[in-house]
Every structure is written in structure tokens, then in C-alpha cells.
């Protein structure tokens, strides 16, 4: 499976409504058939209508051992930081709003640095989404962000595009 990237984990979006319906935790969901780690992205910009119910399903998914949780789009929506405490995510993905022009806005960079520190304390690694310039890449790295995604590094496509590290970055 996943012949195009046999050694790579996969990040996949899961809508909160799918958690409410619970079928994602039944064991036959495609999430559980991947040979490598799967990171299930829960978008932070969509409110959980039944948070406690969702939390129980997420706990079941985590118990499988190879499916990890990712809070997606942090900073784009309601920014309920308690989600990070409650969900124990393996990763937090910063919305591109926090990344855009971060190199020109010291207060924004300080905020991202604080978020990275908080996530690290909570046991989560941080991905910066939407990196489009070398200056933004430098700024997120200076803020302590460990992972990046964006057009500067690789555009979306198929087959999986190669990573292009910008020169002099």
C-alpha cells in the first residue's frame, strides 16, 4: 500500500462529524490499514458539536497505537487551546495566517514562538503551514517550529512532489 511513498507516514483530514458518527473507530476504516503511522488531522476551525463524544472516539483511535492526532489550522478559528490539553495531539499545525508575513511582524513571530513553547510542553511537535518565502521559512525556524509545509518547499501534487530546499535558506 502507498506505493508512491512506502516509507512515509500519512497525514489525513478527519471531519468532526465523522467522529460523532463513530464509524471511524470501528477498525475497518482505511486509517487502520496503512502500514505506517497515520496522523489524523482534526481541523481546529470547525467546532466540535459534541466534544465529549468526539473525545471518547479520539481516545479509541489513539489506542490503536499507530494512529496519532493532529490539531489542524491552529489560529484560524476558535483557538480553543484546551483542545491541546484535552486531545494530547502528536502534532499541531499552525494555520497559514500565523505564518504569512511572519518575517515582517515581530509580535507575530513572538506569538508563534510562545505557541511552539506551549506545544512542546504539552508533548506536541509543530508544523508551520503555508510557507511561501525564504524569509517566512527563516522566521518560523527562528521561532522554533520543527516542521514545515508550503509552496516554497513542495507544491501539492501527484506523484508526491520532491522537497526543494531553497538555496541560501
Amino acid at each position, binding site marked *: *500500500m*502507498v*506505493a*508512491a*511513498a512506502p516509507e*512515509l*507516514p*500519512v*497525514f*489525513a*483530514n*478527519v*471531519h468532526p462529524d*465523522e467522529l460523532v458518527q463513530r*464509524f*471511524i473507530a470501528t477498525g475497518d*476504516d*482505511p*486509517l487502520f*490499514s*496503512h502500514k505506517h503511522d*497515520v*496522523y489524523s488531522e482534526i*481541523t481546529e*476551525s*470547525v467546532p466540535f458539536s459534541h466534544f465529549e463524544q468526539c473525545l471518547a472516539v479520539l481516545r479509541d483511535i489513539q489506542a490503536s497505537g499507530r494512529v496519532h492526532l493532529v490539531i489542524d489550522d491552529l489560529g484560524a478559528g476558535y483557538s480553543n487551546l484546551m483542545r491541546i490539553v484535552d486531545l494530547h495531539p502528536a502534532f499541531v499545525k499552525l494555520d*497559514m495566517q500565523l505564518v504569512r508575513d511572519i518575517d515582517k511582524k515581530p509580535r507575530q513571530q513572538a506569538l508563534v514562538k510562545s505557541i511552539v513553547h506551549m506545544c512542546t510542553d504539552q508533548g506536541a511537535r509543530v*508544523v508551520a503551514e*503555508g510557507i*511561501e518565502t525564504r524569509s517566512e*521559512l527563516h522566521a*518560523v*525556524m527562528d521561532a522554533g*517550529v*520543527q*516542521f*514545515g*509545509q*508550503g*509552496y516554497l*518547499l*513542495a*507544491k*501539492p*501534487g*501527484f*506523484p*508526491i*512532489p*520532491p*522537497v526543494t*530546499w531553497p538555496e541560501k535558506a
Partner: protein
Amino acid sequence: MAAPPRDKSALPNRDMRRQTLDAFTLAVGPGGIYVVFQPIVDLATRESFA
């Protein structure tokens, strides 16, 4: 080049995940969504993590 806006009303569902994980091919899923991949890069090693 700026990234196009994302349509959060069309998040992948179970069928989309099956296409993604089973086939890993460019496919048009329910609602006409294209399945594509964008690497997540480890900024320390500069290599693709996922």
C-alpha cells in the same frame, strides 16, 4: 506563487481516505475533490517527514 484558498467545506471523508491510502493515485473523489499530496518537511533534516 501563492497557495490557492482551501475549501474547508469539502473535507475528505471515509471514501476519500480509502482512495488516498489504498490507491495513492490522483483521483476525483466525492464532490469532485482531487487527491493530492504535499510533503511535510523536517526543518532540521530538510527531508520529507510525511
